[in-house]
C-alpha cells in the first residue's frame, strides 16, 4: 500500500474513532441520571460533622532529611515504610515513632516504596528504572545498609509506583514512565507480564500510579499522564479491561474503593473522581471552586476510609482535604489543623484496620492522624 493510501486510511480511521467516541459520550450521558451526592441528598443523608479536635495528629515521624515521596503500612498495621528524596527508606514503628530500619538506596532518586504482605520485604523504585527488593531480616553491610536481595530490571523508564499483590507474597505490580505496568515475581526477578506499550493499546504516556484490588487481586487500576485510568486483569496483559475518561490532566493517584467495585482518582486538574469499574461510569467529581486566576492545586495522593465514607486527598499546596464521599463536601482540612504539615502532602495511606491515617510531606516529616473525639453513648 502506498504512503498516500495509508495516510488516507489514517484520516478515515481517525474520523471513525472520533465519531465512536462521540456516540459513547452521548450514550453515557443517557445513563448519567444522577451522581453520588445528588442520590445521597435525595435519600436524606447529611454531611459528616467534625469538631476541630476530632481528628488529631497523634504522631510525627522525623528523621528524613529530604522530601517524603512515598509511604506504605504493613498488614499488621503498626509499621510504616517511607521513601524520601534523601535517598533512603526508613521503617518506623508507628506506635512508638522509633525507626527500626534506615537504609541508603542504591539509587538515591526513589519515587515509591511498598511493604510485602508479610512485612518482611520492602520494594523501592525510582529514576534508575528498576525496583529493588530488600529483605528486612538480612544482615546489614559495613555501612549499616541492607543490600538489595533482588533488583527487578526491564522497565525503560522510571518506576513511579509499586504495590505487592495483597494475597501473594512474591508478586509485585509496578508502574513506569515507559508507559507500561509490570507484574513481577520477586523471587526470580522475572517480569511475568507487561501491561501496555505501544501496540497492546495501553497508556499513551507515563504511568504514575497503581492500586491493586483487595477484593479481587487479579485486577488493578493504573493512572497516567494521558489523563486516563485503566483497569487491567493480570491474566490478560494484551489489553486493558476498560479505559476511564474524564480527567483533563495527569492522573497522579488511583485507589480502589473498599468495596472493590469502584475506584477513586486524583489529578493535576485539581479534582478527585469516583468511577464504577464494571460500567465505566463516572459517579462523582470532588472539586473545589477556584477563581479564574487562581493556581489550581494538584491532587497528589488519595485514600478512602475503611467504610468508604471519607476520601482523604493530599494536594500540592499543603491542603489535605477530608471529603464526605457521599455528599461531595469537604468536611475537614487536615492541612489547616494545629501541628499539620508545612508543605505539599505527597503521599498518604490508611492502616489496614482503618483506624489511622499516615501522611507524608515535602516538609520531610510523616504524621499519623486518628480519631481523637469522644463517641457519644446512648
Amino acid at each position, binding site marked *: 500500500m502506498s504512503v498516500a493510501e495509508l495516510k488516507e486510511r489514517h484520516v478515515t480511521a481517525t474520523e471513525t474513532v472520533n465519531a465512536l467516541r462521540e456516540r459513547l459520550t452521548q*450514550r453515557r450521558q443517557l445513563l448519567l441520571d444522577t451522581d453520588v451526592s445528588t442520590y445521597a441528598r435525595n*435519600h436524606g443523608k447529611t454531611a459528616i*460533622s467534625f469538631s476541630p479536635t476530632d481528628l488529631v495528629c497523634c504522631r510525627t515521624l522525623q528523621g528524613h532529611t529530604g522530601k517524603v515521596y512515598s509511604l506504605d503500612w504493613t498488614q499488621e498495621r503498626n509499621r510504616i515504610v517511607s521513601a524520601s528524596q534523601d535517598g533512603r527508606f526508613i521503617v518506623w514503628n508507628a506506635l512508638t515513632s522509633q525507626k527500626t530500619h534506615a537504609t541508603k538506596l542504591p539509587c538515591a532518586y526513589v519515587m515509591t516504596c511498598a511493604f510485602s504482605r508479610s512485612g518482611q520485604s520492602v520494594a523501592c523504585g525510582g529514576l534508575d528504572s528498576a525496583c529493588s527488593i530488600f529483605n528486612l531480616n538480612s544482615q546489614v553491610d559495613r555501612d549499616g545498609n541492607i543490600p538489595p536481595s533482588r533488583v527487578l530490571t526491564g522497565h525503560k523508564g522510571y518506576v513511579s509506583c509499586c504495590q505487592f499483590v495483597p494475597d501473594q507474597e512474591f508478586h509485585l505490580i509496578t508502574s513506569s514512565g515507559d508507559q507500561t505496568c509490570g507484574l513481577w515475581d520477586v523471587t526470580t526477578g522475572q517480569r511475568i507480564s507487561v501491561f501496555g506499550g505501544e501496540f497492546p493499546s495501553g497508556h499513551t504516556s507515563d504511568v504514575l500510579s497503581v492500586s491493586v484490588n483487595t477484593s479481587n487481586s487479579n485486577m488493578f487500576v493504573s493512572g497516567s499522564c494521558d489523563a486516563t485510568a485503566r483497569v487491567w486483569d493480570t491474566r490478560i496483559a494484551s489489553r486493558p479491561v476498560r479505559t476511564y475518561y474524564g480527567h483533563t490532566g495527569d492522573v497522579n493517584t488511583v485507589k480502589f474503593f473498599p468495596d472493590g467495585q469502584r475506584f477513586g482518582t486524583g489529578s493535576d486538574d485539581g479534582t478527585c473522581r469516583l468511577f464504577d469499574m464494571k460500567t465505566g461510569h463516572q459517579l462523582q467529581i470532588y472539586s473545589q471552586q477556584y477563581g479564574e486566576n487562581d493556581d489550581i492545586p494538584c491532587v497528589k495522593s488519595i485514600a478512602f476510609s475503611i467504610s468508604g465514607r471519607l476520601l482523604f486527598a493530599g494536594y500540592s499546596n499543603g491542603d489535605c482535604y477530608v471529603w464526605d464521599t457521599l455528599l461531595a463536601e469537604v468536611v475537614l482540612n487536615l492541612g489547616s489543623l494545629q501541628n499539620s504539615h508545612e508543605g505539599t502532602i505527597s503521599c498518604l495511606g490508611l492502616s489496614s484496620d482503618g483506624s489511622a491515617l499516615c501522611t507524608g510531606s515535602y516538609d520531610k516529616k510523616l504524621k499519623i492522624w486518628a480519631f481523637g473525639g469522644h463517641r457519644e453513648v446512648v
Partner: protein
Amino acid sequence: MPASPSKTAAPIPPALPRPRSPPKYPENCGTRRLQLDAQILNRKILFSREELQSLEDAQPVSICCKEVDEFVRTNADPFIPQKRKRKSCSFLSHSGNSIFHCFTHFETVMASRLI
C-alpha cells in the same frame, strides 16, 4: 593566416559524464510508522465498538450510587463520630480494636486534665 578549422581543430573531447538524478525509489520512510498507527487506530475502533455494545445493557449511574450508599451504610468506620449503645464504662470497650483510637483518646483525656 589562421588555419582552416576543418583541417587543424583539436579533437572534441568526449562529453563529460553528468550526474544522473537519483532513481525514484518507493517512499519507505514513515510507511512502517503509518502502518503501526493504522493498527493502533483499528484497535481503538474495535474497543470503542465493544464499549458501545457493553453500554447497551449497562445499568444507569443511580444503581451504582445506590450500591455505594449501601456499602458505606453497612460498614463501621473508626474515623466517623458515632452514637453507640452503652455497653460498659470501660475505656477499652469504647476504643474497640484500634490501637490508635485507644492511644489518641488516652492522650486527649490526659491533655484535658492538664488544662
